[in-house]
């Protein structure tokens, strides 16, 4: 598999990329501080303790994203393994994570932690203030990057990537007319956010990091203030952003969606809100890596994408679910009882169910999220896509309600664009729309109008069976 201009693996470490920025661009902005990546050429965020971390398996467990980003840049090629701890990792899982990933050092942003108690003695604090440093260890290792899958039930699964695989979808030496300023609603310790981290670094542009302590509307204002040109998020992130009056505070040139199904309604809403922007959706998962990008403004993807893309990504549909083979997929699951990540031919089963209609594949849901109505299957997402087409609807969550006759029924929680009182007629319009397009058992038996829907830390709608 050759990847043309996606040369890999790079001989450059991430710090080399950072050092290539010229000081005029290449800023990472957090709420309170900004860092010029160029300063990392002769400086460190780790207080001179980088040599102690050489060859170790390092858990990156900072409170904020900026220090995590700096630590990742400095430790790539130096540490044996980097484990990107998402902010919502439950404390009860830490012990098994540390054991399974053979963690022998922890980087934090200074918060008190129980690492000593958990048997990890080496604790290094990362600061956004860059201090001068001489005598840096060689960054010659092929560092293993370990990430957590975005599933929300049970113990989190860890998957191992390489920088070559993680950055294989990113064009090198892309020419931009104007400096690129990236932003993402994702946390960079999630696959979708980490992609933007790498893009910002390799583009030599700047990056406006989101912060868990900042309200979405304030982040939108900050994106506007820094002149964000390329902004990414899940469809749920974007629907929430479009509900903020400050959505117009920014004027990106590129709007990117990933991580959930991008339905036609959200694509159209973004095109209307940002008429100057190219709106594209990408398919990616922590296990399968970046599959492909769709830039024709339509939901789904052309069936012609199956059977091998010039990018070296090979896709097929087996038993309704999308399978992907490429150099971008994760290498393996980390941990004792971990199963094989790919089948014997190297294909990863994404668990995302697709349906062919008029030469185009549409995502209809997850293999494990099916609602069973009297023996008939319903993917919540296919019903949501229809509900979301109603002009009054911002977003919806379809879920199962137990029923003594059919075992389960489909019901929907719906968020409207504005706060007008939802009337009976609106409910009937939505139901009528569903009846037009869906089989009877897929039509919601009840609709509840709610002010908001919970979005999980992964940026995806919180589903009970996700």
């Amino acid at each position, binding site marked *: 598999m050759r990847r043309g201009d996606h040369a890999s693996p790079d001989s450059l470490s991430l710090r080399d990329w950072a050092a290539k920025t010229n000081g005029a661009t290449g800023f990472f902005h957090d709420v309170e501080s900004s860092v010029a990546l160029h300063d990392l050429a002769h400086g460190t965020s780790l207080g001179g303790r980088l040599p102690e971390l050489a060859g170790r398996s390092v858990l990156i467990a900072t409170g904020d994203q900026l220090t995590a980003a700096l630590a990742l840049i400095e430790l790539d090629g130096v540490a044996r393994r980097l484990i990107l701890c998402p902010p919502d990792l439950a404390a009860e899982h830490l012990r098994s994570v540390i054991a399974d990933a053979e963690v022998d050092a922890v980087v934090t942003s200074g918060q008190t932690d129980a690492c000593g108690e958990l048997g990890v003695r080496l604790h290094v604090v990362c600061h956004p203030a860059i201090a001068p440093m001489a005598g840096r260890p060689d960054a010659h290792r092929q560092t293993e990057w370990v990430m957590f899958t975005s599933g929300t039930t049970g113990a989190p699964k860890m998957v191992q990537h390489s920088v070559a695989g993680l950055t294989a979808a990113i064009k090198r030496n892309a020419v931009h007319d104007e400096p690129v300023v990236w932003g993402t609603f994702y946390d960079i310790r999630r696959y979708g956010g980490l992609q933007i981290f790498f893009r910002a670094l390799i583009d030599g542009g700047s990056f406006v990091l989101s912060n868990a302590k900042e309200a979405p509307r304030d982040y939108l204002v900050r994106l506007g203030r820094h002149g964000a040109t390329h902004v990414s998020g899940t469809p749920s992130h974007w629907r929430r952003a479009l509900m903020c009056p400050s959505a117009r505070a920014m004027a990106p040139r590129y709007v990117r969606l990933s991580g959930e199904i991008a339905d036609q309604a959200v694509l159209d809403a973004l095109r209307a809100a940002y008429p100057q922007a190219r709106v594209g959706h990408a398919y990616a998962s922590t296990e399968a890596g970046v599959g492909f990008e769709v830039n024709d403004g339509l939901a789904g993807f052309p069936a012609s994408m199956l059977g091998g893309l010039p990018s070296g990504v090979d896709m097929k549909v087996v038993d309704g679910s999308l399978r992907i083979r490429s150099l971008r997929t994760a290498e393996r699951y980390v941990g004792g009882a971990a199963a094989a990540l790919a089948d014997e031919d190297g294909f990863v089963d994404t668990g995302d169910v697709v349906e062919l209609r008029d030469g185009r594949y549409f995502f209809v849901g997850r293999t494990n999220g099916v609602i069973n109505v*009297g023996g008939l299957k319903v993917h919540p997402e296919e019903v949501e896509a229809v509900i979301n087409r109603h002009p009054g609807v911002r977003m919806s969550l379809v879920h199962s309600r137990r029923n003594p006759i059919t075992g389960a029924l489909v019901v929907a929680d719906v968020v409207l664009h504005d706060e007008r009182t939802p009337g009976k007629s609106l409910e009937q319009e939505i139901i009528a729309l569903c009846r037009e397009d869906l089989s009877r058992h897929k039509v919601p*038996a009840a609709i509840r109008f709610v002010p908001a829907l919970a979005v999980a830390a992964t940026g995806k709608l919180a589903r009970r069976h996700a």
Partner: protein
Amino acid sequence: MTTKLTIMAEMQKIAGEQAKTLAALSDDLVLLDSGLDSLCFAVLVARLEDKLGLDPFTASEDVAFPVTLRDFVQVYDHAAR
């Protein structure tokens, strides 16, 4: 509205929504002959739970399966007591 009237009103509404022809509602009407199928009854039980605050079929395991409309109404009347 009595439980019986509530049930009959919902049956008529659901028949309309689901494009089913509902038989004339009488106490002796056999539910299987009512024109409503199991999905309609599933929706009916869910709506009645919202309206009346109870689902007798889930609440108790020894509910005799109703055969006629009269049986069906009695299940709700018993459960409400």
